[in-house]
Every structure is written in C-alpha cells, then in structure tokens.
C-alpha cells in the first residue's frame, strides 16, 4: 500500500490512505475515532443508517493488522460511539480480535465517547507516553509531542474555481491530529475555531487523503 512519509518530532511516520498512521521504528500502528456502532446508536433515535459500519471498520483494521503485523495498535480515542455500540460487534468479531491480540498489544486511549466501556483484551489508558511522544485523545498541556484524534480534521481545497473538502492528517510543530478511521463519521474544517484553538493557523502540515493516496499540501 502507498503511504505518505510524514516527519513529526524528528521521527518518520507513514500515513496510509485508509487513515491509519504507522510508526515504523517501533512497529506501531495508530488509528483514531473509529466510532464503532455509530449506526446502532442512531437507530435508538429511529435514524436508520446502514448497519454495516461496525463490520467495515473492523475489517479495515483486520486488513491493516494482516498487512503490517504491528507489535502495538494504539487507538487514540473514540473506538466506540457509545455504550450501545458493543451490541453491533458480533461474536465472530470478538474471536477475531482475540486472535490478533496474541501478536499485537491493543492500547486503547479513552476518548470522550467511550470513557466507561471495556472490551476484553484492550489495555485502557487516559493517555500513553512513548519516549518524547504522548498519545492522547484531546491534546493537553505538555512539552511532549502529542499524537491525538477527536477533531476528525478535513481541509477545504479551492482550485480552478472548484471547492472540495477532504479528510486529512494535520500537524503543527508539536501536535499531530489523525483523521477519523470511521465510516459514518463527519469532519471538521481545520480552519474552524475548534481546531485553530489547538493547532493555530500558521505552519500547518496538511496531508489530504485521496482515494488510494495521501497527498501533501
């Protein structure tokens, strides 16, 4: 699979078009904001989205794990959409998960959506430090380099009179924000107030995700 090389905190990361990030030196795969079970959570309110998101997201993860065989998988928050989400995970999916857990450490940084939920085999953390990097759902006050999720960043691109929005990886000098790995998840403009408050407006490195390629702006 093609990837885009990203240099952040003097380390090399690979950004994949399936919206995962790979840290080769430590053989660690990082994903964020999967929002598994969003459809079933909406169904509670009689909004019947196609119930295929859980299956698709898990399959995407399984494919990545098969290809990369990482030692660690870090989810930087919002693995699940809410407490109902586990209803959409089938027994077979649990079995598959535990198979993968034999060779890979599953590290689950808790997000705002999945604070109090447990899945067997996942190691739960509010944040997680590796060397000079801190993995956290929402950035905090720290001198470490932070790798986070939460915002589902998208970038607005205007070219030749056309405007498009694309999901993207984005970072400044100290903070890296991953796109959402989910299927039915929306996005937020990186120039919106919420993201600007975190990243600022200048010196952003932006990597829009295309169909089978991650670009660099």
């Amino acid at each position, binding site marked *: 699979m093609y990837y885009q090389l990203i240099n952040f905190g003097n380390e090399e990361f690979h950004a994949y078009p399936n919206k995962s990030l790979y840290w080769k030196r430590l053989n660690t795969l990082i994903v964020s904001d999967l929002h598994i079970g969003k*459809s*079933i959570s909406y*169904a*509670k309110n*009689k*909004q*019947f*989205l*196609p*119930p*295929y*998101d859980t299956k*698709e997201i898990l399959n995407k993860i399984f494919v990545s794990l098969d290809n990369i065989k990482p030692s660690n998988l870090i989810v930087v928050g919002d693995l699940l959409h809410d407490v109902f989400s586990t*209803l*959409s995970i089938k027994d077979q999916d649990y079995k598959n998960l535990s198979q993968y857990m034999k060779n890979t450490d599953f590290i689950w940084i808790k997000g705002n959506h999945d604070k109090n939920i447990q899945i067997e085999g996942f190691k739960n953390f509010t944040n997680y430090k590796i060397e000079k990097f801190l993995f956290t759902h929402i950035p905090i006050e720290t001198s470490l380099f932070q790798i986070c999720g939460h915002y589902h960043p998208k970038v*607005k691109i*205007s070219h*030749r*009179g056309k*405007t498009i929005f694309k999901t993207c990886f984005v970072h400044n000098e100290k903070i890296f924000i991953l796109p959402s790995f989910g*299927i*039915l*998840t*929306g*996005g937020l403009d990186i120039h919106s107030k919420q993201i600007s408050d975190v990243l600022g407006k200048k010196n952003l490195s932006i990597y829009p995700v295309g169909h089978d390629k991650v670009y660099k702006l």
Partner: protein
Amino acid sequence: MNINKSNPLLLHPLNKWMKKKKWSWFPHQIETFNYVRTGSDVVVFAPTGAGKTLTGFINPIDDLIKLKKFKGLHTLYISPLKSLANDIVRNLEKPIKELDLNISFQVRTGDTTPYKKQKQKQKPPNILITTPESLALLNSYENAKEFFHNLKYIIIDEIHTFLDNKRADLLSLNIERLQTFSPNLQRIGLSATLKNKQDAKKWLCRKKPKIVSYENSVLPKIKILESKERIPWSGHMATYSINEIYKEIMKSKLTIIFVNTRAQAEYMFKNLWLINKKKLKIAVHHGSLEKNLRLKVENNLSKGLVDCVVATSSLELGLDYGDVEKIIQVGAPKGINRLLQRVGRSNHNLNTPSKAILVPTNRFEFIEAKAAIEEIKKNNLDKIDLKEGSFDVVAQHIFATACAGQFNINDLYKEIIKAYPYKKLKLNDFKQLINLIQDGGYVLKNYDQFKRIFQLRENKNIYKLVNKRETRKYRMNVGTIIENPMLKIKLGTKTLGNIEEVFIQNLSQGDSFIFAGQVLEFQSMKNNLVQVKRSKSLISKIPSYSGGRMPLSTNLANSVRALLAKSNMWDLYPVQITEWLKRQKYISKIPKKDEYLVEQFPRKKIFYTVIYTFAGWHANQTLGFLLLRGFKEFNYKPLGFVANDYAIVLWSLKEVKEIKTILNLGLLDKHLDNYLEETSIVKRLFRDNAIISCLIERRLPGMEKTGKQVLFSSDLIYTVLKKNEPDHILLKSSYEDAKKNMIDYDRLREILKKIDKKIILKKLTSISPLAVPIILEINRENLSKKETDEYILEDLENEILKEANVLSIN
C-alpha cells in the same frame, strides 16, 4: 343556443351578485356546474381571467346553501402556493359577505398560527383553503377520518403545476386517502390550457370523468425586441440591449421583466439601476429573497406602486396583478407553456391581448424566440409528461399513515395503487418501503429493538407506531421540496434572504457580491449566518444557484429545427442573423428538420466534433458524457465536452473517424450506469430521497442541522449502502429519479434510436458559424476566475471569429 334560457346558474345563489357586478356566467362555468351536479369529477381548462376560481366554488356554494347550516368541513381547496391561498380567501370573501351567505371559510398553511390550527380542528369551517403539505399533515392526525368524513368536494387549483413532480405524487396519495374517508367525495381540477388534457383527467378524475375547456380566442401580442445593437454570439445576460429594455419600461405603466435564473435577475437589476436616469421605481423578486422583501414587492406590484419588477419564475404563479401592462422575457423561452404562463401575467382582461417582448441574449435564442412566437400563434402547447410516482413519497406517506393510527398494509396498498402515479407500484416494492419506515429496510437486521413501526402479534398485516414522539418527527419532515444547503444573509441585524452555501464557500473575506440588488461585502460566516456589509465595490460576483436549469422543451426544439431549415424566412431576420445562417449554409449545412448535423474540424492541433441534437441541456449533458466514454474506447483521446440546449461539442487529440459507429442506442445502454456513478447525480438525488422518505431528518427542534451536515451524512450513507446493499429500495428510487428528471433518459433514447440513419456528417477545415456560440462556451467555462474579464472574452471571441472567417458579418 340561447345559453340564458337553459342556464341553471340563473337560479344559483351567486347569480344576484353576478348581476350586481354586471357579469355574466361563462359557458364553461355552466358546463362544469352541470357535470359536477350529476356526479362527475371534472377538470376545467381555462385561461386566467375566465373566472376559474369561481368555477370551482359554484357547486360547493350551491350545495352548502341547499344543505342549510351544514356543520363541519364540506369543501377542500388545494392551492400550489401559500400566497395564492390567501388570495383565494380574499376573492371568496367578496360574494359570501356581500350576499350574507351562511358559509364559513378559512385558510390553513404553514403560516397559520398553532392556535388557529387547533381551533380549526375543533370547529372546522365549511370551506378550507390549503396546500398539499398542509393536507398531508391534516391526514396524519388521529382524528383525520372524523375531520374529513363529510367532505363533498376537493378542488385542485393550478392542477397543471401538479402533474409531473413529487408534490403531485404526495397530493395524489392524500386525495385517495380523502376518498377513503369520504367515498362520495367529488374532484374538481382547475388548470391552465394544456396540450394533453386527457392526461390531467386521468390523473385526477375517477367518477364519470369529464373535461371542460374554454379557449381564449384573443391571442397575446408577442414580438422580439428590435435592437440597433448586434445580438451577441453567446452569453446569457442581454447587456447589449439594456438601454432598449429601459426604453420599453418607460413606455409602459407597469412592466415585469422575466429572466431564467436568479443570477440573471440580480445582474439585470443591477444594470438597470446603473442607467436609471429617470429614477424609475424598479424592484427585484426571486425565490431566495427573504419572505418579507418578496411580500413587499408583491404588494407594491398589486398596488401599482412600482414601474418595473425583475423576476424569475417566482412571479409566474400567484396573485393577479391587474395593472401589469407589459411582459419582457429576457433569455430563451425554453418552452411554450412557460412562455404563455409568463406572458399571461400581463393584462388579465380576456378581451384584450397580453403584450410581451422577447429579448434573445444570443443568436440561437433569437431563433428560439421566433419559433416560440410561431407556435403560440398555432396554439401548439408543450405536453406535460406524467411520470410514475417516486418511491420516497410513498415511504413518507406510510409514515404519515402510521402517525394517524394503526393500519392494515393490504388496505393501504390497495388505496395507494388507486392514485394515478402509483398504478404500477409493485407489492414487493411497497413492502420494502414499509420496511424502510420500520427500521431502514436493511437486509442485515441489526435494529430489531429500535423499530419505528411494528407488526401486531395477533395480526401481521397490522402495523403500529412505537411511540407518539415519532409523529413530531414526521411533521418536521413533511413535504417533497428539498432546498439546496442555504445560508441566511444578514446585513446588520436585517435578514436579506438565503444564499447557496456552495457560493459562499468560494468567497474570501472582503469579496463583494450582488444580492437583493445591492452590492455586499462578505465579512464572516458564523452559525449558518453570513454577515455582510454594504460595499461600493464595482467588481462583484453574481451568486450562482445550481437548481432550476430548465431544458428546452421537445416541442419548442422541434419548432426551432423547423424554423432554422426554412431559408425563405431568413431575410426577415436582423441582418447579422441572416448572414450567420447564410454563411453556415455556404460553409457547412443547415440541417433539415429531422436531420442531425455533425461537424468535425481541427483547431490548434485539437479535433472538434459538434453534434446539433436540439435535445435540451439535460439530454445533451448526458450524451456528451456518453460520447466521451465512447471516444475513449476508440482511443481518440478525448479531452472534454460542453453542452447547451442545442448542441454538444467534444474535443480530442485524435481525429474522430467513426462517429456513426459510436453515436447510437448502444452507447446509452453501455455507459449509462457509469455516467450516473461518476457524475454523482444519483448521489445528489439520494440525499433528497433519504430526506423525503424520512430516513434522515431535515431538522429537529434543538438540533438544527445545517444543510451541509445533511448533505454530508447522506453521502456517507450512500457510499456504505452502495457497497453493502446495492439493491436497497432507496438506491433504486434515486436511480429512477435520475432517469426521470436529471438526464432526460426517455428523450435521449428516442433520439438515439433513430439517429444513425439521420446523421449528416460534415468534415470542415475550420470552425463553422453555427458552431461559434458553443465553442465560445468552452472558453468561458474553462477560463479560471481571474481571467473572466470582459476584455479577455472579447479578445477570445475576436480570435475565434477571425478563424471562422465570419468577422465580416458584423
């Protein structure tokens, strides 16, 4: 025959009032009265000014007087517009008050206060004037049956506007519901003159169907603006004739200028103001303007307080503005019916002709305008094609039915297929729509505990709503009109109207644009509000509105082709047009009425293929894409295409040698799915389908979604569904919608069926005169924004004209 002697209306309660007004009954009023009296459902066709509204009320009023102090709802009057509903009330009020008749009547629309609505439900008036959406809402209440069970008449006003769209589908389903509630219900339709009157009859009538028709013998006086300026090769803004248009406004007491798009309206308005030395009172009116601004213009119009209003189709229907003296149509008429509707807005007196002036904005439009005038003289109207009903509307109707109480699906199905648009609705599709409302209708059953409607255990055919809260969601989602994502424009604290989000997205802070006739500067966007301030900038953009581009009607297209071929008429045209056509005949060919001219020529190492189909914009757009695919297959290395109402031009790196092999029906069958896929036409329609069928919500109190978010999530749903469940009923529904509305599938099919035998292929050494307008459109569309300066356009135009060796014509 002496009508007066046999006229039963002389005994009608309204006769006294008619006499007082010195009015006499029209023959079609007598005929309608007799038919309805003897139990027929009737459609009445009559022009404006022929007492149409009154015609509908003759039988109901007669009946109500005879019944004496009838309690409850007796007659329902459906109007396409809220504003029209209010006008009907005013018209009805006059005779009923003056004659002191004991008949109660009220209006009920989205603007009626909740208090009034509540009172209406407790104590219904004899006559209720309402809209299709309000009717659907009334039918969704638990007591709908009691409310309507004595209903005797339903009158559908302007029924011609209800025949070929989703609103018509919704209305047809609700009429059938009323018929179930009140089996004796009779239907009366009121329509402008139509070509296919039988179709309107089939759509509406069930009991002893009858047509009543009154044709106006006074034809409108329509002419083309005589201009000293040359008509431009291409473009749509009529800048060339602005001074002459201004003179025409000065000549008449009150003028409406109709244009085809909102952008044109803003542009025309701005240009008129620039030359408004006499300080004429000129106003602008279009659908994006804030309601209050629109009402103000309408009010001033009816009181004669303005000299001129620039308007889009927003003023086509609606109140009678008796004082309008002249209509100016700027731009292509597009269809006969549409032009007649617009022309009919002037002079509502039956015996004097309406007056109109057509202003073509380019050369093809001149021919089109000429053709339209000819057809109107011959009274050759456009046919309105009835369409099969859309699935999403049925889904909404099922939801509404569930809101009114538990229901038997077999009874509901039987009722639905009585409605004309749904005669062919398959039971299997219907059941899928039931499932759609129940839990999204997915094959993967994940939502068993979250259903919206459920089957009763004791009878699997009976469904019931899970809880009352759902009724509120239905009521928030009722209706079939889905707006593009819009944002409100605020000047200070004043709301000016709505603008398409897409347009704003392309603006940067400080950019100026024209809206509501003012030059505005974009300041900021927050919480779906676009904050602007007044600007003095001379450079300003015109907002674009993606919706509503109407294709040239088949009828008018045929007439354009016929007229073009009549070379003996050419000398009557302005000299530039005459020369243009003569030159074309000399260099290439003027196609005969049933021929399809294809021209091929090289230009700057690129090969151009121009196909004159006259198929209308939608069909040409589709054909352009299909041909692009076909060219690719033959390895001609196509680079792009542009289509307008008349022609398509494709350009490629290699010469296209096998056009006859490519251009046929096989092309459509082979590449259509690809087309729908790649252009995201189905995806866009899926959003409408998802909202109309209540799969996703338009808005909910407390969680106001912006249009953007709805669009976004519907795109995601579409993608997931397409991948996992390509046979889902909503995908099928969107696909059908695309075929019916967006790509003119049937029209294209008709053309391609016979095209291969009628292609006239001309290999030229350079561009032909007829091709100049469409070639110019290429350059216009492909220029980047900064380059669209008029000078550059002018320069380009000259360059191309020189090449075509037609510069001498000017």
